[in-house]
């Protein structure tokens, strides 16, 4: 199968035939964006320092260093996803307000984000977490750094990437959610496992 590569700006129709469990890659721009940036836009109503319409965000807090001999050119050392669920409170509105099409993070997101992805056409994907050097070397350049007052992990670093991935689609535009569907199965198996183990742990007699 050919590599499925999305290029920013992404249009809604580009996402129609993509389903949960698919593997995709990204070419173009992606901006790191996590807890405080979501809070500032949605809860405090501040304007984001970057245009995300048709764009991609990465729930990530990277290690960045300045390029030697410069003060405002940056190099991506190590960048990987953080727990997406922390952004659940804000993500549906975030998708609606910004027009963002691709959200990359770690672990699943909930019902509200699923609705946001379904109604406003966006995907949530996971990048294998802990694989921060693989991600960093796909960054060709950090083009801008917004809200630097937030410190290194929370600054909005807009990166130009070449074939960033593998990205596993966890929420598609059709209302399906890989992690929520898995959870149902996991919980059933958990009950079975608990029953089996508990037969052997009557240590208090």
């Amino acid at each position, binding site marked *: 199968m050919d590599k499925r590569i999305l290029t920013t700006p992404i249009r809604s129709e580009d996402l129609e035939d993509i389903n949960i469990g698919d593997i995709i890659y990204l070419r173009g721009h992606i901006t790191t964006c996590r807890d405080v940036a979501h809070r500032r836009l949605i809860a405090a109503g501040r304007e984001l320092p970057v245009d995300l319409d048709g764009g991609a965000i990465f729930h990530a*807090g990277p290690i960045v260093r300045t390029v030697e001999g410069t003060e405002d050119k940056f190099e991506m050392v190590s960048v990987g996803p953080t727990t997406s669920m922390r952004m659940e409170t804000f993500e549906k509105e975030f998708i609606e307000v910004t027009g963002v099409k691709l959200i990359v993070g770690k672990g699943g997101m909930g019902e509200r984000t699923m609705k946001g992805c379904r109604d406003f056409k966006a995907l949530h994907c996971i990048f*294998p977490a802990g694989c921060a050097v693989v991600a960093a070397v796909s960054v060709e350049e950090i083009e801008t750094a917004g809200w630097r007052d937030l410190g290194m992990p929370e600054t909005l670093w807009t990166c130009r990437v070449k074939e960033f991935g593998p990205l596993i689609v966890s929420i598609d535009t059709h209302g399906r959610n890989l992690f929520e569907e898995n959870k149902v199965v996991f*919980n059933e198996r958990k009950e079975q496992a608990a029953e089996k183990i508990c037969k052997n*742990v009557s240590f208090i007699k």
Partner: protein
Amino acid sequence: MNKQSLGIHMKDTIAKLISYSSKVLPDDIYTKLEELRAKESDRLGIIIFDTMFENQALARKLDRPCCQDTGILQFFINCGADFPLIGELEQLLKEAVVLATDTAPLRHNSVETFDEYNTGTNIGRRVPNIFWDIIPNSDACEIYTYMAGGGCTLPGKAMVLMPGAGYEGLVKFVLDIMTSYGLNACPPLLVGIGVATSTETAALLSKKALLRPLGTHNDNKKAAQLETLLEDGINEIGLGPQGVSGSSSVMGVHIENAARHPSTIGVAVNVGCWSHRKSHIKFDKDLNYKIISHKGAVL
């Protein structure tokens, strides 16, 4: 060497070890991951494992932290009462963290509570976290370092069960964490469980359990049996790497225990992610050292 040069030597060694352990996984973890990868048959699980191994090779080659979340630094010390730098050690560890933050480089992860600002140095009030055990009649010093990242710190939980809940209650407590928060904490996980009398005694043991070499068992037979039962049970749930499903959910389950009050069972869970960045070093009184966790490591 006089005390001052011994101090500088120790600080530099620890800083280099912190930096090294942010880039290279300990031997026991790497070997276990290879074993789990060989067994994995899930399509998505295999893709994730392949990316993990590609990442570790790149981190080594490019000399970069293998995961961007280099955590809050924690040190568990078994210090001989006669170790010459016992009085200076806390300050040396703090300075080592600042040094490694710059040289590795590490991400800035120390946020002062209430005042809510990032110190930018990885030190802060009571950070790095330092846990002491003093060893009588010894002049050596053994240090475990651990990078407590955010993702694998989140599932941490402690509570006190009534004895009526029994060890069955403990099993359910652990399994519930696996399918809720554990899923997002970068499996295959290392699961540390503390069983004691109260929240803080259980919690400390649950973290110490994460520092035990993989593959070792609790010396109590029943506790060891429960380690195996839980390991098999959690693997049967099939979380898989990153929770996308697959055969490997955990690298291991370690239990550490202490006696309890007749009316309570204190339980706690701490998990380590697959990128379990711990290290273990032993110093003698002259500051000659041996790195136990990473064979052949050159600092």
